[in-house]
C-alpha cells in the first residue's frame, strides 16, 4: 500500500530521498495506527476490571519483596495518563503502600506498557522487546528500592500525609461482554485520541531521518565508536516527551541507520520516562530534592542500560 501511494499515486521514485521518506511515513502511519487500535482494544477488554482502586487493594499490606515486583508488573499493564498520576500516588500512600513501591509503579508505568511491548515486538523483533521489558522493570524496581532505602518519604509534600480518604468509591465496571467491548472502544478513543499527534510527529521525524539524514552523520555522532553517544542520547531525551507509541518509528529509523541498540533504547527510555511536563505534575506531591533524585537516578540508570546493551550486543 505504501508502495502504491508513494510511487504510483505521487509518482515518486523509490531511490529519491523524498520517495523514501514518504514511503516510510505512509507505511508507518498505516502499520502503527492499525496496531495501536487493535492492541488498545484487546488489552482494554482484558483490563476492564483493573481499576486503580483494585490495584490499591492488591498492593496494600503486602510484604515488601513481592510488592515491588507486583508494582512493576502493574505499571507495565496499565497506561496511566499523567493527570491520574497524582490521585493514584496519594491513594497508594494513603493505603499504606510504601513510598518505594509507589515510585516503582510511577517509573514503570510510562516506560513499559503493553502498547510499547507489542509494537516493539511486531516491528523490531522479540529480542529487543524482551531486553526493553526486563531492563525497564529492573530500573523501576531498583529505583523504588533506592528511594525506600534513602527514606525519601520526608520529601513528600506534607499535605499528602494529612489526606484521609475514608470509604473508597469504586469505579463501576460492566462485566458483560458488551460492557467490556464498550470499554475497549472507549479506551481506543481515549488513548488514540491522546497519542495520535505524538505518533504522527514521531513518524514524521522517523521519515525525515530515514529519507534525508545520511548514514555517515549518525555513524559519526552516535555510532559505536563514540563513547559519549549514550549519555548524549539520554540527556537529549530528558526534557523531551513522547509516549512509547510515538517513539517506535524513531527507534525503527535510528536502528536502520546503524545506531547501536543500547544507545537507541536509552534514548527511548529517557524520552518516555522523564520529561519536564511529568516533573511539573509530580511537583504537586513531591518536594524538589526528591524530583532531582528521581531525574538523576533515571538518567544514570538509562546511561547504564545503554552501555550494557552496547557492550553485550556490540
Amino acid at each position, binding site marked *: 500500500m505504501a508502495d502504491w501511494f508513494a510511487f504510483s499515486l505521487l509518482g515518486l521514485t523509490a531511490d529519491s530521498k523524498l520517495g523514501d521518506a514518504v514511503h516510510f511515513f505512509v507505511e508507518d502511519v498505516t502499520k502503527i495506527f492499525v496496531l495501536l487500535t487493535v492492541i488498545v482494544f484487546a488489552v482494554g477488554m482484558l483490563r476492564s476490571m483493573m481499576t486503580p482502586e483494585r490495584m490499591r487493594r492488591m498492593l496494600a499490606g503486602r510484604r515488601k519483596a513481592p510488592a515491588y515486583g507486583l508494582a512493576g508488573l502493574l505499571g507495565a499493564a496499565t497506561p496511566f495518563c499523567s493527570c491520574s498520576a497524582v490521585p493514584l500516588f496519594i491513594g497508594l500512600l494513603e493505603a499504606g503502600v510504601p513510598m518505594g513501591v509507589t515510585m516503582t509503579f510511577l517509573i514503570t508505568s510510562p516506560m513499559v506498557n503493553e502498547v510499547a511491548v507489542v509494537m516493539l515486538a511486531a516491528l523490531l523483533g522479540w529480542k529487543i522487546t524482551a531486553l526493553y521489558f526486563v531492563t525497564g522493570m529492573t530500573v523501576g524496581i531498583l529505583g523504588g528500592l533506592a528511594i525506600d532505602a534513602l527514606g525519601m518519604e520526608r520529601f513528600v509534600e506534607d499535605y499528602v500525609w494529612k*489526606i484521609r480518604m475514608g470509604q473508597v468509591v469504586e469505579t463501576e465496571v460492566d462485566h458483560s461482554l458488551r460492557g467490556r467491548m464498550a470499554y475497549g472502544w472507549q479506551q481506543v478513543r481515549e488513548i488514540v485520541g491522546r497519542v495520535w499527534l505524538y505518533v504522527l510527529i514521531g513518524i514524521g521525524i522517523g521519515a525525515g531521518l530515514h529519507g534525508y539524514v545520511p548514514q555517515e552523520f549518525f555513524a559519526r555522532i552516535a555510532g559505536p565508536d563514540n563513547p559519549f553517544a549514550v549519555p548524549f542520547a539520554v540527556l537529549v531525551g530528558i526534557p523531551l516527551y513522547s509516549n512509547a507509541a510515538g517513539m517506535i518509528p524513531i527507534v525503527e529509523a535510528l536502528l536502520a541507520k546503524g545506531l547501536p541498540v543500547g544507545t537507541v533504547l536509552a534514548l527511548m527510555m529517557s524520552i518516555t520516562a522523564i520529561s519536564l511536563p511529568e516533573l511539573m505534575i509530580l511537583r504537586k506531591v513531591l518536594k524538589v530534592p526528591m524530583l532531582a533524585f528521581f531525574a538523576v537516578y533515571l538518567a544514570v540508570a538509562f546511561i547504564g542500560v545503554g552501555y550494557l546493551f552496547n557492550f553485550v550486543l556490540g
Partner: protein
Amino acid sequence: MKAFKVLGSGCKNCISTAKLIEDKAKALGVAVEIEKVTDMAAILGFGVMSTPGVVLDGKVVHAGGIPQPDKVADWLRA
C-alpha cells in the same frame, strides 16, 4: 436545584463530564449548579481515586471516567 460537583484535576475528561451534565440538564429543563473541584486533597477526601468523579448533593455517585448519558439523566430526574 441540584448541586453537582465534578471532581478532577482539570483534564479533558473532567471538562467533558461537566459539559455533559450541563447539556443534559438544559435538555431536561432541570436547574443545576455545577462546581468543578480541582483540589487533590478535596477529591481524595471524597474517596475518589480515579477521576473524573461526580458528587450529587454531597454524595459521590460516580468515579472513573465520563459517565454514561443515561446515568446522568437518571441523576437529574431523581
